[in-house]
C-alpha cells in the first residue's frame, strides 16, 4: 500500500481553491528583476487533495488508532474538547500585537495557566514562552548561566548530567556554552552519590536531573543529591518530561529543584501533532524567576467599567467612580533580568488553551488520579512482563519501565526485531535503545488512559512474541509484514540522499 507523491497527482491548470477577484485598481508591478519566473507547486483539485491526505493518514498510527506505549513520550489520550477549545475564533483569530485591552481573554488564560503550573510544581514564577521541552531546557541552562553571572560567579560553567539523561540535556548544555560531566547511576538506577561527590567543585553551575528518571524510577537519593549540589553552590534543573507521574504527588520545588520545564504535550494532554507543536513552559523559584524569558503575563487590581468590563482611565472623575468595580487587569511584562525572548511572541498559545482546558476539567484531585493511575498501569505491565523479558532494575517503577529486549533461547533476536513484530499486531513499539545504560532497551510507558483490557492484550502479545522468538525467530527478523511498508533501508536513505521529490 503506497500513495503517490502529491506532485504525481498534478495536472496543469487544476486547482483546489477559489479566491476573490481584485476589488481595487491594480498598481504597477515591481521591476522584472525582482520577480520570479515559475513556481513549481502541485496543481490538484480539492477532491484529489482530500483523498491524498486521507490515504496518508491511513498509513499512520496515532493514539486514536491504537496502543502507543512509547516510553518517555507520554502518549496519552487527548480529549476532543481541547481541539474545539483552541479553535474558538476568539482565541485562534487574535493577533499577537493587538492592544492589551482587546486580548484580555487571552492574557487571563495565560495568567491562570501560569498560576496552575505554579500550584502543581511549587515554583514562584512560570514563563509559557518556550516552544518545546528541548527549548525549555536551553532556557533553563541559560537562566542558570545568567544567575551565576549576576553573582559574579562566571567561572561556574560545568553541568552534571546523569548517564540516563535524554540526549537533549547534553546538547542544551553545549548550546549554552557550558561543559558537561556525566554522572554514573548506581545499581538501583539512582544517581551514584559517590560519583556525584567526586565531581562537585566551585566550577559546578548545577545539575540537570530527570525525575522520575528515564528508567521510570524515582531517584531515592534525591534529597541528598539536591543538598550536595546546593552546598557546592550549584542549581538543580528538573527535566519535567516525566511530570505525568508526579502531579499532586510531589512538588518539584519542595524537593529542591530550582527550575524545571513542563511538557504540556505530554503531561497536559495537548496532542503531539506527529512531532509538534509541543510546549515547554519553565518554572523557577523566587531567586531565578527574574531571569525567565518573556514576556510573561502579570495581573493588577484596577477599576473596571461595571457594564463593559473595560478599564477605567486612571484619572477617573470623582463621582464616576461608582460606575466602576474592582477587577483584575492583565498585561504582558518582561521579567527584570530576563535572559531575553527564546522565540517570537509569547509561546504556543494554541497549545496553552488545550492545557488550560485539561487542568480546569480535572482539578487537583483529578490530576493526582492521573499520576496515580499512570503509575499503576506501568507497574501492572511491569509485573507481568518481567516474567518474559529481563528487567534490569527490578523495583517499583513510576509511570514507565525499561526491559531488555532479548529473549533467552533466541540469541539473534534484538529489541528492534521485537519492536517490528509488535507493528504486525497493530501496536506501536516502545522506545528502542534508550536509555543508553540498558542494553537493547525497550522503554514502555502505557499512560493512565489505557484500560486493563488494552494492557492485557499488549502483555499477551509481548509474551507471544517472546515465544515466537524461540520457536521461529525468522518471523521477527522479517517483521513487519502487516504494515503499509516492510522494513525500510535507512542506510540507503542516508547514503543516497533524496530529500525532495525529483520527478
Amino acid at each position, binding site marked *: 500500500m503506497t500513495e503517490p507523491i502529491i506532485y504525481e497527482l498534478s495536472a496543469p491548470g487544476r486547482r483546489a481553491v477559489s479566491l476573490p477577484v*481584485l476589488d481595487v485598481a491594480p498598481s504597477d508591478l515591481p521591476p522584472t528583476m525582482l520577480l520570479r519566473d515559475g513556481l513549481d507547486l502541485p496543481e490538484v483539485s480539492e477532491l484529489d487533495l482530500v483523498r491524498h491526505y486521507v490515504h496518508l493518514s491511513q498509513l499512520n498510527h496515532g493514539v486514536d488508532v491504537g496502543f502507543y506505549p512509547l516510553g518517555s513520550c507520554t502518549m496519552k489520550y487527548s480529549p476532543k474538547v481541547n481541539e474545539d477549545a483552541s479553535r474558538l475564533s476568539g482565541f485562534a483569530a*487574535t493577533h499577537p500585537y493587538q492592544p492589551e485591552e482587546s486580548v484580555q481573554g487571552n492574557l487571563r488564560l495565560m495568567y491562570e495557566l501560569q498560576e496552575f503550573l505554579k500550584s502543581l510544581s511549587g515554583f514562584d514564577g512560570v514563563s509559557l514562552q518556550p516552544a518545546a521541552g528541548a527549548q525549555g531546557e536551553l532556557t533553563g541552562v541559560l537562566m542558570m548561566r545568567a544567575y551565576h553571572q549576576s553573582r559574579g560567579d562566571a567561572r561556574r560553567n560545568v553541568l552534571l548530567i546523569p548517564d540516563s539523561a535524554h540526549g537533549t540535556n547534553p546538547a542544551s548544555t553545549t548550546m549554552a556554552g557550558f561543559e558537561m560531566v556525566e554522572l554514573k547511576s548506581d545499581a538501583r538506577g539512582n544517581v551514584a552519590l559517590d560519583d556525584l561527590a567526586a565531581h562537585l567543585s566551585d566550577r559546578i553551575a548545577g545539575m540537570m536531573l530527570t525525575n522520575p528518571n528515564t528508567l521510570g524510577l524515582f531517584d531515592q537519593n534525591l534529597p541528598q543529591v539536591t543538598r550536595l549540589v546546593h552546598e557546592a553552590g550549584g542549581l538543580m534543573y528538573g527535566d519535567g518530561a516525566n511530570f505525568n507521574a508526579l502531579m499532586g504527588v510531589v512538588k518539584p520545588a519542595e524537593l529542591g529543584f530550582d527550575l524545571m520545564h513542563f511538557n504540556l504535550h505530554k503531561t497536559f494532554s495537548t496532542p503531539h501533532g506527529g512531532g509538534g507543536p509541543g510546549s515547554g513552559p519553565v518554572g523557577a523559584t523566587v531567586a531565578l524567576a527574574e531571569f525567565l524569558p518573556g514576556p510573561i503575563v502579570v495581573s493588577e487590581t484596577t477599576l473596571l467599567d461595571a457594564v463593559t468590563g473595560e478599564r477605567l482611565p486612571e484619572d477617573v472623575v470623582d463621582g464616576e467612580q461608582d460606575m466602576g468595580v474592582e477587577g483584575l487587569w492583565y498585561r504582558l511584562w518582561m521579567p527584570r533580568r530576563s535572559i531575553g525572548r527564546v522565540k*517570537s511572541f509569547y509561546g504556543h498559545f494554541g497549545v496553552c488553551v488545550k492545557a488550560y482546558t485539561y487542568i480546569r476539567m480535572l482539578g487537583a484531585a483529578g490530576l493526582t488520579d492521573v499520576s496515580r493511575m499512570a503509575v499503576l498501569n506501568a507497574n501492572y505491565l511491569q509485573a507481568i512482563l518481567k516474567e518474559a523479558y529481563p528487567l534490569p532494575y527490578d523495583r517499583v517503577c513510576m509511570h514507565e519501565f525499561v526491559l531488555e529486549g532479548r529473549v533467552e533461547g533466541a540469541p539473534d533476536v534484538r529489541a528492534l526485531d521485537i519492536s517490528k513484530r509488535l507493528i504486525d499486531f497493530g501496536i506501536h513499539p516502545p522506545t528502542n535503545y534508550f536509555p543508553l545504560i540498558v542494553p537493547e532497551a525497550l522503554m514502555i510507558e502505557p499512560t493512565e488512559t489505557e484500560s486493563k483490557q488494552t494492557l492485557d492484550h499488549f502483555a499477551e502479545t509481548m509474551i507471544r512474541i517472546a515465544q515466537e522468538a524461540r520457536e521461529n525467530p525468522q518471523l521477527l527478523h522479517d517483521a513487519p509484514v502487516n504494515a503499509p511498508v516492510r522494513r525500510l533501508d535507512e542506510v540507503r536513505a542516508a547514503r543516497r540522499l533524496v530529500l525532495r521529490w525529483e520527478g
Partner: protein
Amino acid sequence: MGYLPHTEDELRAMLRRIGVEHADDLLLASVPRAYAFPEIDLPEPVSEMEIMTELREMSEANTDLQRVPCFLGAGAYHHFVPSVVDHVLGRSEFYTAYTPYQPEMSQGTLQAIFEYQSMICALTGMEVSNASHYDGATAMAEAVIMAISVWRGRRRKVVMSPTIHPEYRETVRTYTQGMDIAIIGDYSLGNDIPALVDMVDGDTACLIVQNPDFLGRILDLSGLAERVHAHKALLVVACDPISLGMLKPPGDYDADIALGEGQPLGNAISYGGPYIGFFTCKKRYVRRMAGRLVGQTVDAEGKRGFVLTLATREQHIRRERATSNICTNQALNALAAAVYLAAMGKSGLAQVARLCYHKAHYAANAIALLDGYDVDLAVPFFREFVVRCPIPVADLNQDLYESYGILGGYDLGQVYPELEDHMLISVTEMNTRQEIDELVEALEGIVR
C-alpha cells in the same frame, strides 16, 4: 474524571497482580513521605459543558479578527485559510501520532513532511529543506549557529541587518549568549545593504538580511551573494512565503541559507503561536543543518518509503557534540503549510501574492494623499508599508480601535527610535476595499 477507564474490579485485580494493597503504596515506595501528596491549589473541576461556556466567555473578551478590520502584520499575518486545511489537520491519525521513530507505522507523517520539504524547496528555490523549526525567529537562531558550525567556530562574527524582525534579532541574541560571538550591524537603521556588506570580512561567519524586510520593502539582492562569498561567509536570507508567490526566491540570488516564518501558509494566527519556521540550505551544507529531515528510500521489497535520515547530526546520537538540541519539528504546522501550498498550487499562491500587493498599494496611495501623513511610494514594497503619522501612533491606534473599531498598524517607534510616529500597515487579501476605505477615512477623520 481524567479520562480514566479503570473500574473498581479492575483496580482490585491489577493491585493483586502487582502485590500491593493500594495504588498509593506504589507511589510511597519511592517518593519521600515528607513531601508526598502536598496541597494543590487549583479551582474546582468543571464538566465539558461548563468549560466550553467558560472558554467561550474568555475568548469573547477578546476582539477577534473575524469581527474587526485588521491592519497589523509585523511578522504574523491574517491570511485566508481554505477549509480543506483544517479538515486535514483534524485527522487524528496525524495529530495523535508522535515523531515518526517507527517509519513502518508513520508513513503518513513521513510522506507529508517529504512533500512539505519538496514544496518549500520549490517555493524558496533552495536545494534542501528540513522538516521545520519552532518559528521564524528560532529558525534564524539555528541559521546563525549553523554558520558558526560551518566554520567550526573559527569565525565568530555575524553581521545582521537592522531591518530584520526585532524579535528575531532578540532571539538570535538569546540563543547565542553563551557562545562568545559578536553580532554587529543592526544597531542603526542607517546600515543599509551596502553598509552591511562592508562589515563582512575574513572573520565573518554570515550576513543575515530579511526580504521583504521588516518595513515591508522588497530588496534587490542580486550580486550580494558574490560579495559575501568573496569573504567565504554565508548569505542567510529570511523571507516571507506568501511574497514568494511573485518575488524572486532566495535560491535565485544564491543564498546559502533561506528561512522564514511559515505561519502565513495555512496556520491560524492564534495570538502568536504555534507557528512554523521553514529552513532551507544548499545541499553542500546539509550535514551542518539542525532539525529533522525526511528522506526517501525503499523497503525490503523495493517499494518506495520514507524515513527520518541523517540522524547522526542530532542530539540523541551526538549528545553534547550536537550543534542543536532540537528534537521535534512543528509537524502539524508543517502539514498545514503543505496542504495550503498544494491547495493554492502554482496559480493560487501567485494570485494571493498579487492580491496582497495591489491592495497594499491601493491603501498606500490613498494614505499618501491625506494631509499630515507621509508614505514613501518610491521604494518597492509587498504587503506592508511605513506611514509617517501626524500624531503618536499609540494615540492614533487607540482612536482607530475605540472610535472606528479598526485594529491599526504596528507602532515602529517601539523598536526604532528613528521611527517615532511611524506606523507599519499590513494589507492582505482579507482586507476588502471597503475596509481599506474605512481605514483611510478614519485616519483622515482622527487628525481633522
